[in-house]
């Protein structure tokens, strides 16, 4: 699991790679929250292009970040979601709170 981020025109884009499961989630959460706490953006975009696998742990992790940013009215989006993740996003209704950017 790895993350890389950049802020361009008020959008913080976080590129996540590897597996998102119960094993990798604690470190991912910690690193994401460090970025979110640093601020300097008005919009968050998760780029999932490098994610090989995600299970329901990812749902909880994403909803947690969404809730954290909602307090400051910062919207969260997602892009490059693979077929397996898309199924999970649809089933859990995640797209209703985290919009898909095509």
């Amino acid at each position: 699991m790895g993350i890389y981020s950049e802020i361009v025109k008020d959008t913080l884009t976080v590129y996540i790679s590897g597996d998102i499961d119960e094993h990798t989630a604690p470190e991912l959460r910690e690193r994401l929250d460090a970025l979110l706490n640093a601020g300097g953006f008005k919009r968050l975009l998760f780029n999932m292009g490098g994610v090989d696998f995600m299970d329901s742990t990812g749902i909880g992790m994403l909803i947690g970040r969404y809730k954290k940013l909602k307090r400051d009215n910062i919207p969260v989006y997602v892009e490059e979601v693979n077929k397996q993740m898309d199924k999970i996003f649809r089933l859990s209704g995640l797209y209703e709170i985290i919009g898909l950017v095509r």
Partner: protein
Amino acid sequence: MELNNYFKLILSGKLENESFARSTVAAFCTVLNPTIEEINDIKTAVSEAVTNCIVHAYQGKTGEIIIEVSIYGNTVEIKVSDTGCGFADIAKAMQPFYTTKPEEERSGMGFTLMQAFMDNLEVISTVGIGTTVLMRKNILRDVEDVRA
């Protein structure tokens, strides 16, 4: 249906074994020539079942997880068992978004994903004895085999 192939794996219920467990089951199923989507469905369901054993059944203590995979015709049967705490209200546990640990950012979608990604799911649990999750999936054969 005749049993064509079988394996049994007993592993320590540690989080670092999750990836190994789902990848091993998926690799074993490749004899049925599944699609990438079917392989990912199996990986997701196994990951959910194994996570439940570690997080809920053993609650942070390390116990054994037993994974048995049987292939009958075009059907894969995956059994994931633990000897952890077990739970009484199976119907409640299987409800979407139901979680006993909301403070840990858990989604409560584990059983829902197992149900959605597999064709059949049975859960047997006894408090103090443990839980067994039995999942089946039919691997659809291509109508036309391009290698023929």
